[in-house]
């Protein structure tokens, strides 16, 4: 069996070099591109994201990223969002009083964490869901977070026959969603590509599920 192919969506977001290298280390055949056809054909699509919510949305829209994600999900094709690439999957983000519309794959609002020290920067533990595929074998590890905003609630009711989503939480002042696995759409608030060997394992778990 040949290696799973993953496209890292290249729309001008921060450090994508590390995401590419980490996915390769985890066993995928990786391409960094914004080409719509390549992004649709790949076994998995990784959507990175750093910076401000509105800046990421603007860049993502310019690259047609929302349409690519929609088209993949309509066909049940896996997508993994990372950091702000997770945040924009929700309905809206509120940063410094500015409200920006997100991709709206999931209902909910990205808000600022209520913590004495922000950004939340460093290695934190997570409370995983027993049904998690991504965290298989790394439930007790720490992962690298760097963010000030997050989803603090899960608002989507998933009814049978659809499998219920696997939700992983973390706490920094506020309890927030560290990861979501909802059918073909998964996301992590932390950076697996910056979380050492446990992060590589998480990416491998995702790649193995493609």
């Amino acid at each position, binding site marked *: 069996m040949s290696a799973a192919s993953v496209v890292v969506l290249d729309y001008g977001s921060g*450090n994508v070099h590390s995401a590419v290298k980490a996915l390769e280390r985890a066993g995928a055949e990786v391409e960094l591109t914004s080409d719509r056809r390549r992004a649709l054909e790949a076994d998995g699509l990784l959507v990175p994201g750093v910076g401000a919510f509105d*800046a990421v949305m603007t860049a993502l829209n310019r690259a047609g990223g929302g349409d690519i994600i929609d088209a993949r999900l309509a066909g049940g094709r896996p997508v993994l969002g990372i950091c702000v690439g997770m945040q924009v999957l929700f309905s809206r983000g509120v940063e410094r009083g500015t409200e920006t519309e997100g991709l709206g794959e999931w209902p909910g609002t990205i808000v600022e964490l209520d913590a004495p*020290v922000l*950004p939340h920067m*460093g290695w934190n533990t997570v409370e995983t869901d027993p049904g998690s595929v991504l965290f298989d074998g790394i439930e007790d590890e*720490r992962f690298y977070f760097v963010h000030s905003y997050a989803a603090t609630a899960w608002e989507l009711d998933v009814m049978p026959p659809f499998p219920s989503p696997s939700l992983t939480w973390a706490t920094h002042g506020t309890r927030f969603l560290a990861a979501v696995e909802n059918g073909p759409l998964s996301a992590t608030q932390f950076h697996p590509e910056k979380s050492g060997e446990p992060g590589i394992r998480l990416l491998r778990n995702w790649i193995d599920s493609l």
Partner: protein
Amino acid sequence: MAVITRVIPCLDVAAGRVVKGVNFVNLRDAGDPVELAAKYYEQGADEITFLDVTATVDDRATTYDVVRATAEQVFIPLTVGGGVRSSDDVARLLAVGADKVGVNSAAIQRPELVGEIADRFGAQVLVLSLDIKRSAAAPSGFVVTTHGGRRETELDALAWAAEVIERGAGELLVNSIDADGTKQGFDLELVRLMRELSRVPVIASGGAGSVRDFAPAVEAGADAVLAASVFHNGELTVGDVKRELMASGIEVR
């Protein structure tokens, strides 16, 4: 459950080699930066910081190669500082594999740069690096310096720290020029003052000489501890530092 203390080896890089010196002078060769970074990754470093201390544009290009090669095998955050003068410089560093960028003298010359970088890439990308010296002339007792501590500015260290946080710095790298290279321990008073003032993470830097120096800095309020020569000399491993922090009741990874 909380975010834990980070231990950060810092590599001063010039012309593609790691250098070391006392109080930023008498620089000596200390090895290959990519190899050293990989070694610290194996030892459990929580982040790696590169400080580009080269003066020429040619050497700067070499540093990009170092960052790129490191990011291909070291899967923890990389901060790169030195010579960053514009948000385009930040873009170039992020493109080759940096996660955070350290800014120092360029922000002193043009404070608007802090906001420009934060607006374009987010506050989390920007580590404001402060080279601080004790000075009776400054209201807080601490003054900001440039040129590796050789030139004093008119800026009071605490007032400047408050300003850069307001302008969008995501983290403070607080380096004591007095303590740097002395191996007499961190300047704990400085760390404490910065912690009281700052709502962003504080990295304590300068003065680490033995494993026992790190816990007091964390107790004084540091979110992360940074050291260079004690690691490069092989006097201490990252693991040694973490074991001692743990023995002091401080949580590490």
